[in-house]
């Protein structure tokens, strides 16, 4: 009996001791599991060298577009840079000493928030002029203060501003073509607007005057690349519609500019949040027709943009007769621009992507990537750079004359964080495959 009591008393004492001991123990502190929203890639076989192009910005750059062209026809490629801080177009070209010089084509504050350029001889005098889409405000507004202007070349690369169309909402793109086959240059205009917008073509009626023809009335048109999408010999118009509709329309030209009132909707999605941001033409599968590359990554619905899993690049493969098959070829949060070139010199067409809204809070996420084509239009994504961040525009071209396509991108810094936002315009020279 005593033995039993002894055992029970001991057990009670042990239990109490254990309880007292456990009261002194600190809780385990764990890190809160946080999802990673940013996109980052490994570095691929190609090496890129960041070139010093002498561009500097005192504050936050707002580069809206970069165009590669040989403006002075000296055999080397120049850059036309749309600057929404200085409100001008910068002409940047390489000197014989391999330096870069940069001059404004027109005085600062002449072109309020230029959004896009296209080089064409609009006045048919034998020298290249420059068409400029005037956005006027980077921020959303429906005010009718957008314009289409031409910088008229005096033959010696002096430029004068000529207003071609005004009373438009924010204009994001203007492209030239002879739509009515009458021998002069007509224009197609993306009037992005905000809640209201349009796509229209401007018929050249001579003496620098244009008659406007509305193709469709809807907001959010970003780019209007012109090409012969149906291979019938005349220029058609593709229109990338963002905002509410997230679709690609093609306006078929019967050859005389009398576009049909209903366009071909060659692609569309119910994903209202996809965030289409840009569209360029290319022949990605090299089958002789014109395909389209879409970049998706706009995300301005909330106070701060957020990269989404469905952001990236979509290839619309032209299957003829206005049938396009869509292929998702790359994922990169906040993708805003894409361009195509044979980056690795293997004979197929690769793709370069620029991100404006990756998760910049993470220092090592990718701002610039290239997608390597395996020859069968299957792509592997590789990291090129983490900065500058906020890249809004990207183009590929041989900028140093070594036969390899280089990359130039521009930064539009309108949202924090500005923690890796070095430089507004960055050039990466393609060094080829690493030895």
């Amino acid at each position, binding site marked *: 009996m005593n033995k039993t009591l002894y055992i029970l008393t001991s057990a009670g004492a042990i239990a109490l001791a254990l309880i007292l001991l456990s009261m002194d123990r600190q809780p385990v502190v764990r890190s809160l599991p946080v999802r990673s929203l940013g996109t980052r890639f490994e570095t691929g076989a190609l090496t890129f060298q960041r070139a010093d192009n002498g561009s500097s910005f005192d504050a936050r750059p707002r580069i809206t577009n970069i165009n590669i062209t040989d403006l002075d026809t000296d055999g080397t490629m120049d850059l036309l840079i749309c600057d929404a801080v200085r409100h001008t177009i910068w002409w940047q070209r390489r000197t014989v000493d391999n330096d870069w010089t940069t001059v404004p084509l027109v005085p600062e504050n002449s072109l309020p928030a230029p959004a896009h350029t296209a080089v064409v001889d609009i006045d048919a005098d034998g020298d290249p002029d420059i068409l400029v889409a005037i956005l006027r405000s980077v921020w959303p507004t429906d005010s009718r203060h957008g314009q289409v202007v031409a910088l008229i070349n005096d033959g010696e690369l002096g430029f004068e501003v000529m207003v071609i169309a005004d009373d438009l909402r924010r204009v994001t793109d203007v492209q030239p073509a002879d739509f009515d086959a009458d021998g002069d240059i007509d224009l197609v205009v993306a009037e992005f607007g905000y809640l209201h917008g349009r796509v229209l073509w401007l018929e050249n009626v001579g003496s620098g005057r244009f008659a406007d023809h*509305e193709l469709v009335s809807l907001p959010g048109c970003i780019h209007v690349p012109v090409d012969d999408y149906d291979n019938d010999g005349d220029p058609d118009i593709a229109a990338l519609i963002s905002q509410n509709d997230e679709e690609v329309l093609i306006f078929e030209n019967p050859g005389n500019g009398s576009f049909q009132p209903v366009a071909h909707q060659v692609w569309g999605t119910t994903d209202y949040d996809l965030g289409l941001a840009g569209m360029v033409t290319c022949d990605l599968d090299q089958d002789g027709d014109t395909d389209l590359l879409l970049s998706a990554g706009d995300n301005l619905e909330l106070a701060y943009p957020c990269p989404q899993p469905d952001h990236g690049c979509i290839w619309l493969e032209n299957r003829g007769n206005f049938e396009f098959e869509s292929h998702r070829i790359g994922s990169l949060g906040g993708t805003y621009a894409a361009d195509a070139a044979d980056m690795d010199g293997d004979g197929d067409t690769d793709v370069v992507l620029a991100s404006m809204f990756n998760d910049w809070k993470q220092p090592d996420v990718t701002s610039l990537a290239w997608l390597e084509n395996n020859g069968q239009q299957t792509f592997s994504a590789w990291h090129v750079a983490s900065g500058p961040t906020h890249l809004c525009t990207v183009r590929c071209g041989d900028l140093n004359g070594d036969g390899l396509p280089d990359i130039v991108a521009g930064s539009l810094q309108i949202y924090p964080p500005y923690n890796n936002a070095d430089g507004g315009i960055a050039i990466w020279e393609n060094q080829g495959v690493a030895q």
Partner: protein
Amino acid sequence: MRQLRYLVIPLFVIELAVATWLMFFQQETFKLPEPNLVGYPAYTRAKIREAISVVRPDVALDWHHLADTLFAGGFYAEAEACYRRASTLNPNHPQFRYHWAFCLSSIGQTAASDEQFRRAIDLGHSHPEACRHFIGLNALREGRAKDAQRAFTSSSELAVSRLQLAELAIRDHDLTHASALLNELIKEQPNAWRVYYLLAVVARQQGDTTAEQQHFAFADVVSEHVRGPWHSRAATLQKLSLELGVEHRINVALEQLQQPQNIDRVADIILAENGESWDPLLEDLLSNVDLARDDRKSQVNRLQQVIDKDGADSYRTARLGFALLAQQNTTEAELLFETGIHLLSGGKSQQVIDMCGALTELRKHAGNVASANQIAAWGDFLKGTQLLEDLAIPEAAAAFSRSIELDDSRARSWFWLGRSQQLLGNHESAATAFAECLIRNPHHEHAIRNRRALSSSTTDIPSDPASLER
């Protein structure tokens, strides 16, 4: 004694079990998130750190408040983790689930979002229809149109769900159903641009070009959204976001500047805020401190620096121009006003109108009446467009008329006068104005179209539409 033993043994067994459980169970808690605040304004950084510092790790509501703050500051991943923690600590709170689901949807985690919206409904959320609407939106994002349709049908008491159903019906070429939904909607929300736009699309697909034009014309002048649960939640977060932003700081400081005794304190706050970085918004605010101290030289220098470093816009040129004008520096003020009027940027039409007024006076004073009239005409034109955007149509028409009296050479002034008269139902005046427009620009497509419509006794916009009531 035996009875005592029967009582004591189970008691000690329980004690031993409890002690063993306490020894092996380790209480778990979570570290508060440490978002990377580099590159954010000092004020935002401080506000977020403050929000983190007040969280009690075991209190669900604290985690939830922190989640809201982080979400509003753009720290979505950290916000999602905090919403998750709040729902773990208090798993039966439907609103916690709802907000967590919204956050998951915002970062593209649609399947997880759906799960939490469903859980919110199960827990008795006060707005199950909102949860179902979001489930529909998530389905749209994934391209599951049929699922979306089912979800929107189940939340069709919401106008915004019916709008989505109309969009889906158009995609399915079910124009009759779409038209019926839209025509009902327009009765409820007569200024909703998207409804008119979709009605125009339906009319186009039905080949009814007159109705198409009519609906597009309405869509072109009204600007309201059909609001739903997404807008409600976004508005709450937007308000929180503004409170985290430097602009909020500036507004608070501006209010404090009204009291002269606060000037030095405000200056200290702003300088501390600026830190090592240079921020054009804060420099602009500091120029107000300069003005309050009557240090006009410093005010001008600071405003000039803002333009030199970060570029000009109409707001900045107006600020500097009027500061220079106060110093009687009319030459430089005039140049700035010219630049600001040309730029017409920064989203502040009123400042451009003010600059037009000041420049008009300067030109009149210099005896340049022709130039003064041109600038005044431009100011009136801008005033007219601003009034038209606000749907103050009679006032807009008057402003366009004043503009034309001063300078009748612009086609666009005549067009917008015609448009205003048309909206007011003054068809004869409208037709005259369109004709004048076409004299100056024979290729003005809208003037051609509207004039044609008026001459055939129909209008592309019905006169005196109910939807345009102010």
